[in-house]
């Protein structure tokens, strides 16, 4: 009798499984998070991974449909070519993906040349989804031609257009919300375009073999500019530029904090060099002068005047070139204290002018924490040594 009870008990214990209590550390918290938070997370994943979450569980099947940021970059196309191989299908895959998306799309990045018709349709789709941040970039030969629809996306805040063709229709009144614009290899008249974007804070015109044209007084109309980068080759060829013009530009941009100016081997003209520009530019914090020939008197005195007129300048970077031979009269400068913390001078020859500039920087910059001086790679060792000796003999204001 006892044996039967024992047997029954054993059978019950073996067949009856208590419901498995989920230990608190093993609970699924992520699936029940608010949609906005899950979207925030999925937006940060590569697209293929974000779409791939649809197979995690039933509740995850459509979470990726709320993606609001789409980045189709090298990683993405690499993944596709690894999986599919057939390059003709990429446009189709992206189009079908867009069909599934339910919510607003605020950011779209495409870094591959796909056919213009597809791209046009995508821009049409995005224009209805509240697109704010658009990057179209590729290194193919033929530029993207931006469709008319592009110019009616009035919510644009950030645009990066590399190798595109910007020809606004006559009805284009501007992008009233545009905060940043970066252009590379864009061939057209840019002035008309940029003056219609009055809120612009960042304007970067990359130097390339194909550059659009602007006038200095068109740039000067962008009163909100904080970061400006352009090359003198972007200016209309009928213009000649003097120091005075550059100071005039700085004076009309009261909020400018960063200026990158590519001299592109240009020599500033003498016009107005003697005119002293009275204003100081207290907001400028960083200055980069590229491809500037410091052996040219106008260029050198412009560099000095810029440093002197910007009392809050913290960073200075100069990439020098040498076209003119020494000697030319070295400008007389008063010594003013600068707030410079970091200086980088690249491609120097060790000429008198360059040493003169370095002497000034050493003597006037008590806050200087770092100075990097890179001589021309073609400088012979003997010349390099002489250059180094000259520098070591200069007086320093900083510790």
């Amino acid at each position: 009798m006892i044996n039967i009870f024992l047997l029954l008990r054993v059978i019950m214990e073996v067949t009856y499984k208590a419901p498995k209590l989920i230990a608190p550390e093993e609970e699924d918290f992520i699936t029940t998070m608010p949609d906005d938070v899950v979207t925030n997370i999925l937006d940060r994943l590569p697209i293929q991974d974000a779409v791939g979450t649809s197979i995690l569980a039933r509740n995850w099947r459509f979470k990726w449909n709320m993606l609001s940021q789409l980045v189709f970059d090298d990683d993405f196309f690499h993944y596709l070519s690894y999986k599919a191989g057939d390059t003709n299908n990429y446009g189709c895959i992206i189009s079908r993906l867009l069909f599934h998306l339910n919510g607003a799309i605020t950011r779209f990045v495409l870094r591959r040349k796909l056919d213009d018709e597809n791209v046009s349709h995508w821009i049409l789709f995005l224009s209805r989804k509240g697109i704010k941040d658009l990057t179209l970039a590729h290194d193919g030969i033929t530029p993207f031609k931006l469709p008319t629809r592009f110019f009616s996306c009035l919510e644009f805040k950030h645009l990066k257009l590399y190798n595109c063709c910007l020809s606004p229709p006559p009805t284009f009144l501007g992008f009233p919300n545009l905060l940043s614009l970066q252009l590379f290899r864009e061939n057209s008249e840019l002035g008309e375009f940029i003056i219609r974007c009055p809120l612009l804070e960042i304007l970067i015109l990359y130097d390339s073999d194909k550059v659009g044209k602007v006038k200095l007084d068109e740039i000067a109309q962008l009163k909100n500019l904080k970061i400006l980068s352009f090359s003198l080759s972007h200016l209309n060829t009928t213009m000649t530029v003097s120091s005075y013009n550059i100071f005039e530009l700085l004076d009309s941009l009261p909020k400018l904090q960063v200026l990158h100016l590519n001299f592109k081997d240009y020599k500033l003209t003498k016009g107005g060099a003697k005119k002293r520009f009275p204003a100081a530019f207290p907001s400028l914090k960083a200055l980069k002068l590229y491809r500037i020939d410091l052996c040219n008197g106008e260029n050198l005195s412009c560099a000095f005047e810029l440093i002197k007129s910007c009392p809050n300048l913290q960073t200075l970077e100069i990439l020098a070139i040498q076209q003119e031979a020494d000697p030319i009269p070295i400008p007389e400068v008063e010594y003013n204290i600068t707030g410079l913390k970091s200086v980088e001078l690249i491609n120097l020859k060790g000429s008198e002018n360059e040493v003169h500039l370095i002497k000034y920087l050493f003597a006037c910059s008590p806050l200087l924490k770092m100075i990097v001086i890179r001589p021309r790679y073609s400088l012979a060792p003997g010349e390099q040594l002489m250059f180094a000796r000259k520098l070591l003999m200069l007086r320093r204001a900083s510790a």
Partner: protein
Amino acid sequence: MTSSKTIVLRSSDGATFEVDEAVALHSLMIKHRIETGGADSTTIDVPEVTGNTLSKVIEYCKKHVEAPNSDDLKSFDTDFVKVDQAVLCHLAKASYYMNIKGLLDLSSKTIADMFKGKTVEQIRETFHIKNDFTPEEEEELRKENSWNLFV
């Protein structure tokens, strides 16, 4: 004279925390409650957040309000999110409800990093997601997604 007014925050499980008003205002939700709440807004209920999580959220806000320009802010943030995925999910949810953008972005980014480089099965394991698809459903899903090769 600047008054150091304090606010009491009450979590879902009744825990109370007294914080400087300036720290509490780092949460735009609390800021809004105070501004529209009128005179007796010294105790604010945060029913979507438990005591443990609220305490951590306050720690974040304190650091970011009291020393926003300090050099070690970045390393504070990095160390702050060296926690279990469950805690991260609670932080993300709390910062969403309390409208603290910095913390929401920080926790979302950290959770996103936990997805990267993992297979579907590994993701399920990390976050304890139960696969409730039947084999037929899974097969159908793969077929439907044959256009995208991601699934």
